[in-house]
């Protein structure tokens, strides 16, 4: 298996979906079964190789990049095909391959209009390659390529299979079709950020001696204090824009509610579960190690924006009438906790951030699956028209209740650790950071947990509980079917397992995080 450990394992994980996309493209569009099976096979193979990677990973040495390779790629700009995983990226890699498989399974007989499973699955597989690639890339250009590869499929998914209702833009009087508006907004917003990010990458490249895009080499230079002063400030700012849009942090978040709400179910799931993590991962993998001094300068500002995201996102949730938009806004708040953890620049905070990313991916992914299935049945997302879902569909309703509890951070379920430990980390941030800012952030973050509980319980009240409205009383509803359960039950189990046994994630992340903090800020 030496070949596997020398980069092939990771490469297969990343590129099998892309191969799958090519194969699916060659299949006749009419033969849906073949299309779906092929997609499922390739997605599953990717998951399988990522699991083998996780099994062969040396957990005694999680701070080192493992299972990777470093090959010549674009010689002209000395960009290399440098990949590898450490304890921080491994959980996210497995999460991304797993969510892809579950999305294919869920899609099996839930096709949004205008149908066309072939095109949809091709996009999903390309997306899978982009997501997995971002988590293994150790070269900035490679990272950028994967980061951007993610954009196009998602753009098409929203633009073609998205929500066709029309909406008038507040204050401008322009009427737009949601899928077109949301997809363009998503695309341009992200591109806006990543243009600056690329600029930052290039600046680092030219500043480094010798010129390099290699993250490991750049981190060493960063620790040696090469990227400081005004230069460092502007580079950090450029990277910040790129990642903060993706997270998204307040006030760069407005693409998110529209994109999540307009996207087809699987699109929303992938957006929430994986795409948002590309931003937070970028902070941990690139911004912090390469620009440690700037990270410390910016940390209080990031903490403040994080707390605004928490409070603002939760309050906005309370105002939503559309269940999917509510879940979308909840991501703003939850990712705020992740960013708060990162901003502390401590072991606890960054551990909290990684487990928070994984937990949010699992829980919010599941919430979007559930919201999609409800929309599929009720043909509405307006909570004022729903009610008594628990009576009509006890299994779906029960899972919704469970997931809402997980989302509000109930201890014993996955969501608790990220939230609580982010607060814990904020009490004592890295030496030299402003204690007043971080402790205030801690208190406000704790207030945010109350608001979070508030909107989730209110959502359950309006959707799940109460009498069945007359509109639905006489209709026949099918409770969760086999494909749905196959997609959901693994997420439910993961929520439980990580909740009860957080070592499932910390076991991989802890040493890597400790070493990162030690080397970077020690």
């Amino acid at each position, binding site marked *: 298996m030496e070949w596997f450990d020398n980069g092939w394992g990771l490469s297969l994980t990343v590129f099998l979906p892309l191969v799958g996309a090519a194969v699916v493209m060659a299949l006749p569009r009419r033969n849906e079964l073949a299309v779906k099976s092929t997609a499922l096979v390739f997605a599953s193979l990717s998951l399988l190789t990522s699991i083998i990677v996780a099994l062969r990973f040396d957990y005694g040495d999680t701070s080192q990049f493992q299972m990777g390779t470093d090959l010549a790629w674009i010689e002209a700009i000395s960009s290399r095909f440098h990949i590898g995983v450490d304890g921080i990226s491994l959980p996210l890699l497995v999460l991304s391959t797993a969510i892809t498989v579950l999305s294919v399974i869920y899609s099996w007989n839930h096709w949004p209009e205008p149908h066309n499973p072939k095109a949809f699955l091709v996009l999903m597989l390309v997306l899978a390659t982009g997501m997995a690639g971002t988590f293994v890339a150790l070269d900035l250009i490679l990272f950028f390529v994967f980061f951007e590869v993610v954009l196009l499929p998602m753009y098409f998914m929203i*633009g073609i299979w998205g929500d066709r209702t029309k909406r008038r833009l507040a204050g401008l009087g322009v009427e737009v079709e949601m899928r077109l508006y949301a997809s363009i907004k998503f695309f341009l917003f992200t591109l806006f950020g990543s243009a600056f990010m690329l600029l930052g990458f290039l600046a680092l490249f030219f500043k480094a001696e010798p010129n390099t895009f290699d993250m490991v080499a750049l981190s060493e230079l960063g620790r040696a204090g090469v990227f400081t002063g005004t230069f460092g400030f502007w580079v950090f700012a450029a990277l910040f824009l790129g990642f903060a849009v993706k997270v998204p942090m307040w006030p760069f978040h407005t693409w998110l509610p529209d994109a999540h709400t307009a996207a087809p179910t699987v699109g929303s799931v992938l957006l929430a579960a994986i795409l948002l993590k590309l931003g937070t991962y970028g902070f941990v993998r690139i911004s912090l190690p390469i620009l440690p001094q700037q990270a410390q300068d910016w940390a209080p500002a990031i903490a403040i924006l994080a707390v605004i995201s928490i409070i603002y996102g939760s309050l906005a949730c309370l105002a939503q009438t559309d269940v999917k938009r509510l879940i979308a806004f909840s991501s703003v708040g939850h990712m705020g906790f992740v960013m708060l953890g990162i901003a502390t620049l401590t072991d606890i905070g960054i551990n909290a951030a990684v487990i928070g990313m994984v937990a949010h991916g699992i829980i919010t992914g599941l919430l979007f699956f559930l919201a999609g299935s409800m929309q599929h049945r009720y043909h509405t997302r307006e909570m004022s028209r729903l009610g008594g879902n628990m009576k009509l569909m006890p299994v779906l309703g029960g899972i919704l209740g469970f997931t809402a509890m997980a989302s509000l951070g109930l201890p014993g379920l996955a969501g608790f650790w990220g939230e609580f430990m982010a607060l814990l980390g904020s009490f004592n941030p890295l030496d030299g950071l402003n204690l007043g800012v971080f402790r205030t952030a801690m208190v406000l973050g704790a207030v945010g947990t109350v608001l979070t509980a508030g909107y989730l319980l209110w959502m359950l*009240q309006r959707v799940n509980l109460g009498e069945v409205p007359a509109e639905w009383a006489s209709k026949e509803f099918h409770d969760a079917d086999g494909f749905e359960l196959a997609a959901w039950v693994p997420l439910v189990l993961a929520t439980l397992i990580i909740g009860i046994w957080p070592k499932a994630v910390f076991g991989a992340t802890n040493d890597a995080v400790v070493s990162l903090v030690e080397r970077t800020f020690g």
Partner: protein
Amino acid sequence: MFLAAEEGEKVELVGGFLAEWAWLIPVVPLVAAAAIVFFGKRLPYKGWELAVGALGFVAVYGTALLIGHAMTPMGFEDHVTLVDAGTVPGLGDLVLEWGWTVDGLSIMMYFLVGVVGFFVFTYAKGYMEGDVRFTWFFAAFTLFAGTMLVLVSAPNMIQLIVGWEGVGLSSYLLIGHYWEDMENVWAGNKAFITNKIADIGLFLGVIVFAIGAGSFRFLDVFEAVESGAISSGFAVAGALLIFLGAMGKSGQFPLHVWLPDAMAGPTPVSSLMHAATMVTAGVYLIARMFPVFDAPAVAGDIRWLLITIGVITLFATGLIALVQDDIKKVLAYSTLSQLGYMTAAVGAGAYTAGLFHLFTHAFFKALLFLAAGSVIHAVHSNNMSDMGGLRSAMPHTFRTFVIGSLALAGILPFAGFWSKDEILATLNHDGYTAALVVATAGAFVTAFYMGRAVFLTFFGEYRGQGQPHESPPIMTVPLYGLAAGAVFFGFLNVPGLYTGFTDWVTARVFVPQEYHPESIDFVVGGIGLLVALAGIAAAYVLFFRDAESQAARDRFSIPVLYPILENKYFIDDFYMKGIINPTRLQIAAAVNWSNDRIIDFAVNAAGVATRVAARFVYDILDQLGIDFGINAAGAVTGEAGGALRLTQTGKVQQYAAVVVAGAVLLAAGFIIFA
């Protein structure tokens, strides 16, 4: 062994076989709860047998531990490391662990939860017969027992939080058991949110202590507070935050508002959770952390606050009980009032007295709720105005309810007399005279509203519908079981004669420093008893004869005071109209508005402005690579037509345009930096 130790010292206590296996105490109910969810419906008794079996196990194990503890005091804890959670700068590693504590305090609680729980679960089979969600009810109820035991067994604060939120979840689920009715859902939400607000305190308090001590373990925290490793200021702040958490769970003023509404849950739930055990978790937590609350560096600063909150709670909520018609609400306000006694006691440093009242109260209040449930079962109404004269129709319920009432009112020789007397005597000894006076006045109020409840329910003429019958044996036998506790358990701690209870609960690693009465305080006890008898007499005069009771109630309607009490001091209204609704409606709407009209407006306006600018440039300069703006704007307005056309023609150009834009910026950047 522990008897030789001076108070305030740490002692080495032993474990033993029973202690080592005590992890089964929380695990068995949790497994049973899961099993009920998955297999309950297929079992002959629909899952009830698993539930009551689990509680029976806890009762037997708890009793065995108590007997063992009485012979050889145990002070044991064990831990399983779950994960090393990383380092706090300058303070060392924080480790997440799972563990279990077997010492005097936790053994008392195991016994209490097991025995009271067993009776309530037995009763619940009769009470819930025919319920639409019978199996689910027992799953959630058993989940409660399991999480409560997780809370009680916790040797560290993370596990405590897990149990703490777990009982909160069970409470939410069971208050809203009949969720078809929105009233009940609101009640569940209210309980959850009120507790969540208090949990801000619990979470932050835990963080303060954990970081100060570098450990989540209680024993390490106690060491750190004692040694001064946690500075006095942080210890005081931490204790206050923890107390805020305790105030939520134990319904202390002004966070008491959720408990009366929680009566929406089925009566067995009110009995076990919202009277006997769950709501005492806050008092338990203060007792568990007594070495912190009682530390010299802390006690001086916070004692007055705990006593004040406790005393306000005991008196203010007791008064509300006077005007309730719903028998469960009477008992709920009474529970709040008794929790006030407990809080005042542990707050004043009377560790044993507070716990003793917690212990006896669990039996007689669980009994009162179950007996009230039996009445409700018979008359199909919660309101005492629909009851009356049930003495002859329901003799078992009547007898046990009266026993419970006498115990609660503090009449010699029932359990409540001894435990309340111990609180009063300790307040007296420690010189908290004002608190003593209010607490004694509270005893009058207690006796008065219980007398009123007994007279309105069981005496006079029946005022309800149909013909009430006594409940079946599965419900009445547990009443007698709990009544035995209400009668006899007061004798577990009679100063000067037998003080077994004191020996049990003070046998723990950190022996609490406190005053133990050497003999009965006859003056305080006598006054307490006289006041209670006076309360019953007053109730007799006003409410004994049914024909006059309506008039009596009118006479009782003291102007000004009565509307204030009926409206619960307007606190609920203030919360709803002053905080909850403004947040939920106005503030949330304002945030959403700012999102759409300010932030997003800027984004959209930038898009539109780009289009306008692009049009201008396009018209004048003719296709100079500003397709980006055109397309963006086109998409925004939907002018670009169908999705496919857009997606197939638009974005590649846009993408190229932005990359070009990036390159321009880049070049600018290099010029600046180079």
